[in-house]
Structure formats: C-alpha cells, structure tokens
C-alpha cells in the first residue's frame, strides 16, 4: 500500500507517522484475511464434501449400469441367434432390480447437476478471492465497483450468512479510477461491522437480520450504501466512531481501527466521503461516495 501524502513530498523517506500508518494498515489487512480464512475454508469444504459424495455415488452407479449393460449384451446376442431362453430374461430382470434402475435414472442427472454446481461454487470463491486480494498497485486503475462488491460479498459470505440475509441492489456504474484492493478492504470492514451489529441485536435467538448493499451513480460520483438492521449507533458515540482505536467490540473481535482506516482510504486516498445515518433500534447505513475520476489526491500524484 502506498501513501500519497508522502509521495508528493520532496524528501525521499516517508515520515515516521506515515510508516506507522502503513504498518497498521498492513496488519489490519492480515488480520482480516486471517479472520476470513476459516470461513472461506468452510465455504470451500462444503461443496467439496458433496461433490465428492456425488462422484462416489456416480462411480458406483456406473458400475451397476455396466453390469446391466453386460446382461443386455448377452440378451441381444441371444435374440440375434433367435433363441431367448426364459432363464436369460429372468437374469436380465434380476440385473435391473439389482441396479435399482428407477432410482438411478432419477438420481444420476441430479447428482451430475450438483457436482457441476459444487465445482462452480468453488471456482467462484477462488475467483472472488483473486479479485478481492487484488495486488496493491502504486497507480490507480478504472474498476467496476459492482463487481468488486460482489467479490467482497462472496469472500465474506461465511461471516454474514448465519446472522443476516444479504440483499443487493446494484445500479449500472461508470468505471471508477481507484485502488480497488484498498476499497475492497473498506467494503469488507463495513460488511463485517454490519454483521456484528446484527449479531448484537439478535443474540442467540437464531433470528436473522438483513444487510442491504446498494449502488447508484450520482453524476461525477458513485455511491455505495451498506445498511444493516442492527441496533443503531448510540447518539452519544456517533462523533467518535471514526477515531482510531475507538471500539465498542470485545477484545479479539475488533481493534477499533477499521473505520479510521476506512476513512483514511476513502477520504484521503480517494478524495471521497464516508458518512453514516443511524436510527437507534432500527439500524445503520454507511455511505461511501467516490469521485469517478479518482479525486484530488489522485491528481496530486506525479
């Protein structure tokens, strides 16, 4: 990750404050990856389990069908020779019964479909991971934010699905000049925060809330809105939530740096805005607004 403020300075070395922030940001990213890794492994292990089970079933099913085909071949040869003994017919019937033909003809197509579905699930997770962990480049590049959000949702699916149903409402967006890897990090933070808020609200009741992700184009800006149906942010702490190290989460669940870094990435790095609306007892919406041209900070880059 680079640091634009430092890049425009004549001095070669980044100031200490900037190095610290770089280190913090890197640590934050690693922490997010570590936390997600278990969930992603689960999302991959599940389809692999049923792909494997179905494939084993298909292998056994083929062996049964092969035995049946062998019986048919004998029958065909006998028919060609014009002498089909009743015992031969009986043997074919027996082979059909053993093969459990009615069951197989119903289940084989389904098993094949589900194998393909499982393979596609794994492939889409791997694709999303690749897109999410977009290598940090020095220069900005035009990116499709809808696609980036979709990838981030796939990567975070396991963090969200037990507490919330996720709804998306994506409007067509122009490409945005940005560092998409960093923005993915912001979206991930906001999504995980939303899931935590809902988890606090529903507790162990087993109920699920809703997380809504909307995008829209606003002239020279695009807007990403991430809403949760959690308890809302208490009025007393609303002006502190972007402060570094401010957190209401338990130790191990958050470091209090997520929103501070999100703001640094959106505002300082991309010349955008990060705001929120919250209603106690009803939920919170975070808005990320980004200039499609990459903002002032970008134009300052050499």
């Amino acid at each position, binding site marked *: 990750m680079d640091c634009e403020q430092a890049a425009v300075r004549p001095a070669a070395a980044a100031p200490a404050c900037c190095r610290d922030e770089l280190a913090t940001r890197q640590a934050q990213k690693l922490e997010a990856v570590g936390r997600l890794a*278990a969930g992603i*492994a*689960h*999302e991959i*292990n*599940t*389809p*692999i*389990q*049923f*792909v*494997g*089970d*179905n494939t*084993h*079933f298909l292998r*056994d099913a083929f062996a049964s069908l092969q035995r049946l085909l062998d019986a048919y071949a004998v029958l065909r040869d006998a028919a060609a020779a014009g002498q089909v003994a009743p015992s031969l017919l009986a043997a074919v019937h027996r082979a059909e019964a053993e093969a*459990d033909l009615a*069951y197989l003809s119903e*289940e084989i197509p*389904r*098993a094949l479909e*589900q194998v393909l*579905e*499982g393979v596609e699930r794994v492939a889409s997770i791997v694709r999303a991971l690749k897109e999410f962990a977009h290598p940090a480049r020095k220069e900005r590049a035009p990116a499709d934010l809808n696609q980036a959000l979709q990838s981030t949702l796939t990567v975070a699916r396991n963090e969200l*699905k*037990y507490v919330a149903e996720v709804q998306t409402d994506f409007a067509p967006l122009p490409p945005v000049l940005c560092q998409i890897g960093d923005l993915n990090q912001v979206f991930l933070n906001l999504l995980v925060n939303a899931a935590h808020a809902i988890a606090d609200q529903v507790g162990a009741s*087993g109920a*699920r809330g809703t997380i809504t992700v909307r995008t829209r184009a606003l002239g020279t800006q695009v807007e990403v809105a991430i809403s949760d149906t959690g308890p809302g942010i208490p009025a007393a702490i609303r002006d502190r939530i972007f402060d570094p190290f401010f957190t209401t989460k338990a*130790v*191990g669940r958050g470091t209090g740096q997520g929103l501070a870094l999100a703001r640094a990435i959106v505002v300082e790095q991309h010349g955008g805005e990060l705001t929120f609306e919250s209603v106690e007892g009803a939920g919170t919406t975070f808005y990320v607004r980004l200039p499609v041209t990459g903002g002032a900070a970008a134009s300052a880059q050499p």
Partner: protein
Amino acid sequence: MKRILFVDDEPRVLEGLQRLLRPQRHQWEMVFVPSGEAALAALAERPFDVIVSDMRMPGMDGATLLRTVQARYPEMVRIILSGYSELESSLRTLPVAHQFLSKPCEPQVLREVIERACALQALLGDAALRAAVAQLGELPARPQAYTALLRALEDPEVAMEDVARLVEQDLAISAKCLQLVNSAFFGLPRRVGTVQQAVRLLGLDMLKTLVCTAALFQTFAPRSGGPVAGLEGLQAHSLVAARLAARLLPDPARADEAFMAALLHDVGKLILATRSAAVARREGPAGAGAPPPGGWLAAATYAAEAGLPLVEAERAYLGVTHAEVGAYLLGLWGLPQPVLEAVAFHHRPEQVSSRAFDVLGAVHVADALASQALGASVSACGELDERYLDALGLRARWPEWRALAAEVAAAHAQEGEQLWR
C-alpha cells in the same frame, strides 16, 4: 435396524450423503433434516441410535443441538461433521460430541465411523447392561471442575490463564493433575509446580485429559486412603499401560487418546469393586467346585484361582464386565468415541470392525504388555488376543514391544508414581 439422523443446513450436503450411503439402506435407517430444530422434532417422534450433525448452522447450532441430545438421549452416539477443520483440536475432547469429522470426509471413513458408533451404541445401549448399571446405584456425575473446564474451552478465544485458574479452584484435582504432569510420561525437564505452568507446557488438549483422569481417580479414591481390596496393583498397571499405549501410536493426537484410554481402561474395576455388593449373586454358580457367592472381589478371586479370564467371572457373578461399566460411565461423561471404544472392547478388540491399528489396538496391546511386565495379578488381567495381532500383521513387532514394556515398567518401579495414596 440402527437409526441414524443426519443434520446439515446445506441441502446439497444432505442429498450427497443420501446418495453416497444408499447402499447401507438395508443396515441403517437414515433420516436427513436441515436444522437443529427439525432434528429435535424427529428425535421426539422416534428414537435414534446415532446423530451426525453439522456444527455451524443458522438458528440452533450443532453444539447446542448435541448438548440437548446429550441431556435428553444420553445413550445416543453423537458425531460432528464440520467444514471448520480448525475446530477439530478444540472439539475433539469436548463432551458434546463423541467424534469429530472434518469436511471433506472420505466415504470409507464416514462409513467406518458410523459402523463403529453403532457397535458402541449396541453395547452401551444394551438393556441388560443398563439394568445392571442401574443396580450399582447412581454413578458419579461429571465433576464440577471438569465440566467447568469443558465449558470454558468451548470459547475459542478463552485465555490459557483463565482456564488454569478454573482448574486451580479445585485443589484435589489440581494436585492430581500436577502429579500426572510430573510423571515420567511427559519427560518434563523440571518439576512443574502450578497448573499455569502445566498448561503452558502441555497445551489445553492435554490439560483436558489430565483433569478428566484426575477427576475420575479422585471420585473413586477410597476415603480410607488405602487401596481398594483387590486393586492393589491397578495404579501401576494403568500408568504403565498408558505410557506404553501412547508410545505405540506415531500420530500425536491418537497417542494422546491412547494415553487417556489406557489410563482409564480399568476404571470399571474401581466402580465394581466399590459398588458391586448390591448386585452380587446371593448364590454362586451351580455345579461341582462352584465358586462362592459374592461381589466383584469374589469374582476376581475366583477368576484368579480357577485360571478364568476375569471378564468371564465378572459376567457370571455380576452380569456385567468392568470394560462395559467403565465405558458406560465414560460415555455419560462425554469422552471421545475412540476412548470409549478402547475401554469397552479392550478385552475383545476383534469385535470392532477396524482394519487399522488404532487407539483400541494400542490399549489392548498395552494392557497385555503391562500385565506381563508387572506380573499378572487379580487387578491386572490383560491377555493378548494373538489372532487380532495376526490379523493386523503385527506379530513381528511383539518382541520389540516387550522390550519397551520392560523398560517402562522398570522406570515406573524406580519412580514409584501413584495416582492416589
């Protein structure tokens, strides 16, 4: 037919299992449900023998489901099949599940685990055994310290210091733990004086084993302080067998289970020796030279004098064997399936359809080796099943194992370690 309940919130996984296990439909009656709530409803309708559940599910999760099952249907075998493989170490010895399987799970492994679960369930759920155990009076509940520890360990972020503090609250159990930690098995370079140090050196998994073992021996330690009549050699036998069993298996996780199972394999003798007066035959078996009536001690003495296997005498006198009773108690305490199986079948390993030398095999062999090395007595009665050894192709290793047993027994004699005094 054995009834098996599968629970998973992912319908594709259930369908896959259903197809995979269709060839077993003549041995097992299988029901597939998509949630913990649906599982409890199915259980309320008709009893099941085995439950195989996913861990993380929306609504009621696997741990909550299995805890409820444990409370309502303690005789069922509980298996977790989860995609969170990193949970395995923390869950392996949790009381909610007897066995932990990771997704993706090989079909042969899944089938074998379920088959073995059925065998264990058939033994522990046997009406005659349960009736006999019921006559022994109420079995000791899982000690508070052990339960509290297991509860604390369910939180994956729990601090080691907090866990150690929990254990330290029970002085008797911490003392026994430290005794075990300082035994030669662990080969620790210096004497460990606190549970905190023990946890740091051995990790939480081993702590669970130690606390459970300590709690068991604590529960059955005679109030008088002296050894139970007939069980004078039992401590030495159990300790030597435990150290041997752990050395027979290369996989450290299996070795830990073997250590625990061998340490506890004769716990049923403690139960019978202290409780069996109530079930003792009033009349000895009929016939010439018939043994005198009595409880476990009479059975053990008779077996030694007549040269009979102890388990046969136990069955004749009491209607149950120490292996079954021990496994039954440990099953109620929620110990993992490999440990239960090893305790239940340590005298007749051939009854379990396993093709591998695992925890059960190690305990069987270690029991026999320890009996030979220490000199067989009333309480140490391990006899080697040579056909079993041949079936696994392990006869060639016997001389090497005997040498190992002699070494461990000699080391033990020198240290004179004891589980209770």
